[in-house]
């Protein structure tokens, strides 16, 4: 492995973005297709939708202050719950061979159910609303976290466990200070996979059964043939996705700094 610097870290790596935007603008203007409005139209529509409010609210509109927090709140609630449940159960499964023999196949089966199928199920079980959406996200994204945590907890270095045993650490301390940190790189891999899945499930659950949220806004724009609004909402979702990704990577880099460095030297 040669630790070549990723090209994206050099300053000026963003130059293709304005180029792509300009190309997009020119192409759509030339084509004149109403389904593909030029980016300038999309951006002005986005401003109108979310950034044309009064100055004392930082120009945020009502839509920006209700739909976006509603969606993001449900996304984070479902994902955080899934992280908590998945890590706990995953570590239990990884540390207990018997438990994993009894429940492992069931977990892999549950993971194989395509998460959108949960939608009609929870829609029938709960009324449309935040509870239904959080449940869809929770049950849809918990499996990758669970399976990865179990994998991580299964492969703790035996010498680390022996060291902990030799110094007489209690069960709780062993779990918290040896097993959990060893499993953490894998837990994070699961969390990253499930974050993008959670975003997908947030959107689809709002498209199918919701009265507010970004997905609902998207559907609303489509129904009224407001195509700049549709594309603007998609751009917003992309920006949200980027922001979540960046925040997650920053957190991971901080928390797992020992892992990257330790692996580089060996």
């Amino acid at each position, binding site marked *: 492995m040669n630790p070549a610097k990723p090209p994206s870290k050099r300053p000026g790596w963003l130059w*293709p973005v304005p180029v792509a935007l300009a190309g997009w603008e020119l192409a759509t203007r030339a084509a004149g297709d109403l*389904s593909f409005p030029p980016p300038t139209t999309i951006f002005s529509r986005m401003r109108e939708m979310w950034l044309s409010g009064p100055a004392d609210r930082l120009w945020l509109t009502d839509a920006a202050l209700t739909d976006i927090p509603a969606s993001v709140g449900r996304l984070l609630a479902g994902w955080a719950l899934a992280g908590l449940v998945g890590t706990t159960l995953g570590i239990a499964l990884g540390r207990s061979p018997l438990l994993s023999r*009894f429940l492992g196949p069931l977990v892999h089966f549950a993971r*194989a159910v*395509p998460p959108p199928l949960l*939608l009609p199920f929870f829609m029938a079980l709960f009324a449309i609303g935040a509870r239904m959406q959080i449940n869809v996200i929770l049950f849809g994204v918990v499996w990758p976290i669970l399976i990865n945590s179990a994998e991580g907890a299964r492969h703790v270095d035996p010498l680390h466990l022996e060291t902990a045993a030799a110094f007489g650490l209690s069960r709780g301390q062993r779990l918290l200070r040896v097993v959990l940190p060893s499993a953490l790189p894998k837990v994070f891999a699961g969390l990253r996979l499930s974050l993008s899945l959670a975003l997908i499930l947030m959107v689809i659950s709002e498209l199918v059964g919701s009265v507010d949220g970004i997905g609902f806004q998207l559907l609303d*724009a*489509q129904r009224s043939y407001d*195509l700049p609004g*549709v594309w603007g909402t998609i751009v917003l979702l992309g920006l949200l996705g980027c922001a979540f990704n960046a925040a997650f990577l920053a957190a991971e880099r901080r928390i797992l700094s020992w892992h990257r460095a330790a692996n580089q030297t060996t």
Partner: protein
Amino acid sequence: MIARRLLDSGPLCGALGAAGLVGAWEAAGRTGFISPTVFPRASAVLSRAAGLAADAGFLSCVVSTLGAWAIGLLLTVAVAVPAGFLLGTLPGLERAFGPVFEFLRPIPSVALIPPALVLFSDKVDMKITLIVYAASWPVLINTMYGLKEVDPLAKETLRAFGFGPAAVLWRVSLPSTAPFIAAGVRLAAAVALIVGISVEFLAGGAGGSGIGVFLIEAGGATDALEYIVAAALWAGVIGYLSNGLFVLAERRAFRWHTARTEVAR
């Protein structure tokens, strides 16, 4: 002693675990802990699932979903693998497209369904297009990542013997990237199923058939939950088997790769 031996058998324990779950589920219904009107009993769902297996309407829905899924996945491989090789071997291209990809990739693929509903008149085309778009990302990224992991010494060995770039690509880069591509395709298969069923949900009956359409139509019935859970069970079985096949094929084809990474760990 015998009990110990039985507890060591993985499949038996798995079957016991599943049976235990079904038993508890049924018992919860029978004792009134969970009312059957809120959540159907295990026996009702299992018999419904058995009925679905012989139901021509349901089977044609499954076939249509799986057909779109398979075609979409094949197209994905045909598009994303060469694209990944191009981007991975020509650094200039990666530098140009990389940032644009970084903005496109986080867009949740299902958000493209509403505009696609406007743009496409044929719903099957739309389903396949969206599947290819969404499933291409994992394949593309894994291909590029795999190319970076190719041992430079192996390439130089071949070059030192006077082979040209095409031979190096064919004999070193492709084989050593193949395990990464396969892992990407396995991820893509799951994504493709998610997107396919989501499209069916939103396009509804107007857009042909599929498991998603079947579920919408079942949603109106009084025993909708039984249908929904039974169909989800079958979807789980299909997903479990296809994932198992992927893993098995990967393990057989890339034994050298797993052996090496296990040693490295």
